[in-house]
């Protein structure tokens, strides 16, 4: 069977059981949990320090009502960053390349921020749809534009993560294939291509972490407007 470059994104199944479920559950089993000891070991301490620092930074601009989202946003960040990083290993499947998964995160969380805004402060939430000082002839157009941008947000959130990760994985596979094909024919060019592949892999590691952070940061910004 001829392999295509998109086979790496196909969600495989074993005896009818979709393996994406195992891929999604993997971060949960990877991280050690705090013990009942007074002082934990170094690994758990570093892990706790990172999560505390990240959560502190994320919650800074949010009011007290938004702090209820600390657990959700911190766990989402750890989940996304783990899945993205594991997906960079060879022969692994990256669940965040599936648009369904990313939209499954983006749409409910975005909708929750909108509903919270409409419920707790409807005047402010509706007032946000029209920038201050808009000239009167432009008001209806701007309201429609701002409404469209409001509804585009979950789509952009999901597609941004999907597209970045998919494009990165595809590039890595393309350049790796080029290295293998060029190696017997033009070894020098293959070595240069391998160097490019190495740099690209470093870039993809950065993109994996940044995209997870951007996803969570944007959600916190949407929450900041509404809480």
């Amino acid at each position, binding site marked *: 069977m001829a392999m295509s470059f998109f086979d790496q994104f196909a969600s495989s199944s074993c005896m009818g059981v979709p393996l994406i479920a195992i891929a999604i559950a993997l971060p949960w089993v990877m991280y050690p949990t705090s013990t009942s000891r007074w002082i934990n070991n170094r690994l758990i301490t570093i892990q706790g320090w990172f999560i505390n620092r990240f959560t502190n930074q994320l919650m800074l601009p949010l009011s007290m009502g938004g702090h209820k989202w600390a657990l959700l946003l911190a766990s989402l960040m750890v989940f996304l960053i783990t899945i993205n990083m594991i997906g960079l290993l060879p022969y692994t499947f990256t669940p965040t390349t599936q648009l369904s998964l990313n939209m499954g995160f983006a749409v409910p969380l975005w909708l929750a921020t909108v509903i919270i805004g409409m419920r707790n402060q409807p005047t402010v939430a*509706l007032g946000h749809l*029209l920038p201050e000082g808009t000239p009167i002839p432009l008001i209806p157009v701007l309201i429609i534009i701002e409404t469209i941008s409001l509804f585009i947000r979950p789509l952009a959130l999901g597609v941004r993560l999907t597209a970045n990760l998919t494009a990165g994985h595809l590039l890595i596979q393309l350049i790796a294939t080029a290295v293998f094909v060029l190696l017997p024919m033009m070894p020098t060019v293959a070595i240069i291509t391998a160097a490019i592949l190495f740099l690209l892999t470093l870039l993809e590691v950065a993109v994996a972490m940044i995209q997870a952070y951007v996803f969570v940061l944007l959600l916190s910004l949407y929450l900041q407007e509404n809480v």
Partner: protein
Amino acid sequence: MPTSPVKTRIPLTSFGHLITEVKRQLFKNDATPPTELTGWRTYFNSYTLKGRRNFVLATYSVLALAAGVYTLRRHKKEEHETTSAAT
């Protein structure tokens, strides 16, 4: 490294709000109304929060009304075509 001249955290999620915040901080344009708000401008203006809310609600109401009228007219037209085809 050069830092941004805009001091506070700008809500980056909307281009309109970004423009408003930049105008306020860089050009000291606080979007104060040119004259006192009287008459209908008390309730419909783009300076106060309630004025903006009322404009948004009015725009949505007009759009919903237009959609409703269009749907009803299309429904009546289809019914009229059906009855004239039957006779």
